[in-house]
């Protein structure tokens, strides 16, 4: 029995380690080769770099306008999620607390539309964006994201508000709180766990979304990280050291984010998926 258990553990760990190698393989090879010269890379792609050549990074930092595209991405993700949380929080709360036919109808409409895939609305959406003249505005783009994401967030808030006792709100109302005060002072703090889930899933979604900015942003001063990486890839089709250093730079912020908030992210993803 004892040896059986040990063989089992060895087999399972071997399997998991192989899967881990597959997972980390592209990341580690990109990292190690990004520090080589082009000649060294062509000579041996699997060896570690003999010397850390940071020139590649200096070159791509400039070429990608790294700091400004990073700033654009942070801005878009931050503002989108801020608007989404604010709008869907208030709306989800009010929809849950109002029991009329209209509130039922609005709620079902929001929930049903979660089924509409992005690729099936992207062309008319592009026309709407042109109509609002926000085709090269990051603030405009943030509003678009909030429009696309608000139904899911509202659905999660609506479900969570149900679990908050109404007596709390009634007591506050008797004490003279106005409705918005009730929401922001009493309800919103209690929604913190679901707000964290909504923030994490949506920040990652907006951060990693490629198709919408690809369609909407044409001014390269407004480019997000993914767009500038994509452009650089097109320009340096076989200059792998430049490309790989750009890829590492583009992946770095999310990796850092992951390292810091790992527990919250994994919990948020699991909760978001199960409740949604």
């Amino acid at each position, binding site marked *: 029995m004892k040896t059986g258990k040990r063989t089992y553990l060895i087999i399972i760990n071997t399997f998991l380690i192989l899967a881990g190698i597959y*997972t980390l393989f592209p990341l580690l*090879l990109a990292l190690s080769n990004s520090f080589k010269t082009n000649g060294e890379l062509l000579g041996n792609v699997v060896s570690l770099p003999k010397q850390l050549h940071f020139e590649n990074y200096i070159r791509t930092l400039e070429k990608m306008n790294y700091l400004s595209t990073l700033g654009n991405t942070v801005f878009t993700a931050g503002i989108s999620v801020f608007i989404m949380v604010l709008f869907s929080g208030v709306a989800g709360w009010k*929809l849950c607390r109002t029991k009329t036919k209209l509130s039922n109808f609005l709620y079902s409409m929001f929930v049903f539309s979660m089924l509409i*895939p992005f*690729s099936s*609305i*992207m062309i*008319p959406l592009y026309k709407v964006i042109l109509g609002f003249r926000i085709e090269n505005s990051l603030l405009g783009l943030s509003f678009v994201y909030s429009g696309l994401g608000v139904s899911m967030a509202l659905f999660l808030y609506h479900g969570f508000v149900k679990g908050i006792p109404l007596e709390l709100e009634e007591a506050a109302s008797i004490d003279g709180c106005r409705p918005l005060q009730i929401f922001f002072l009493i309800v919103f703090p209690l929604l913190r766990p679901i707000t964290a889930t909504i923030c994490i899933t949506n920040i990652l979604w907006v951060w990693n979304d*490629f198709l919408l900015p690809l369609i909407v942003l044409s001014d390269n001063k407004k480019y997000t990280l993914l767009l500038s990486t994509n452009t650089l890839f097109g320009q340096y089709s076989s200059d792998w050291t430049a490309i790989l250093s750009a890829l590492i730079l583009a992946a770095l912020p999310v990796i850092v984010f992951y390292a810091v908030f790992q527990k919250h992210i994994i919990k948020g993803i699991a909760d978001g998926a199960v409740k949604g």
Partner: protein
Amino acid sequence: MRSKKYENLNLLIYVFPALFVYIAFKMFPAASGLFYSMTNWNGINKTYNFIGLTNFIDLVSDSYFWQSVVFTCKYVAVMLVIANITALGIAVAIESLPRFKGLYRTVYYMPNMISMVIGGYMWRFIFHKVLYYMADNWGWSFLDQSWVGDTRYAFISIIIVAAWGAVGYLMIIYLAALQGVPAALKEASSLDGANAWQSFWNVTFPSILPALSICLFWTLNSAFQVFDVVYSLTGGGPGRATQSVAMNIYEEAFKGNIRYGYATAKSTVLFIIILIITAVQLRVMRKRGDE
């Protein structure tokens, strides 16, 4: 007692901001898409004509579009099986370990943090440079294939990369479900003499069915819209062999001939396909919930 009218008006005031962005950027585009799909709008001219179902009739004989539909269906089917089996296998393996659970979980989830555009380009490096190096220098000749240039291998390489990106996410959901299986049930089954295999199929598996539904649903939905990984890895090539529906729509609308009306007709077909699948899925889930 306040009147219903007052209550509804009050509701609308609070819902208005959310409703506004939602209608402007989701509902209106969805509804107007249905209209544009019946016009010959080309995106440049201000005027366009209503042409009824002509776009849909043209679509029937559009071999590139159907080729992309076939590719996407194949991709969805393979992803459903491979990504879910791998993720469930990994989740079960991790859950059975006494130690290092957190470490494994952290590693496997990592690709999911990175955009598939970045991941696709990293893998492109592997397929263009690294595998050939291994084939030449380590004698691993099975790696010496035209990974991105040959139709069959291009499909395999897309699956390798897409699974790389998706498994971590699915694994997290399966892990959460596995942790919810009551330990008492598992103990009872092992006391009754069930081996690990029997206990998995008779106790664990039935209790993680909801998670399985979620994962299958998520894979279906995201795989039908696949764009990033194909765009960055093969660009739809060789030729149009790995072009997905979303890419086909994108190219029709934003590259080359700019036939917006016609491209919206394609989007409408995609939406209907996804809607049917979702309806079937929801019905199956509800039935299971009733039992």
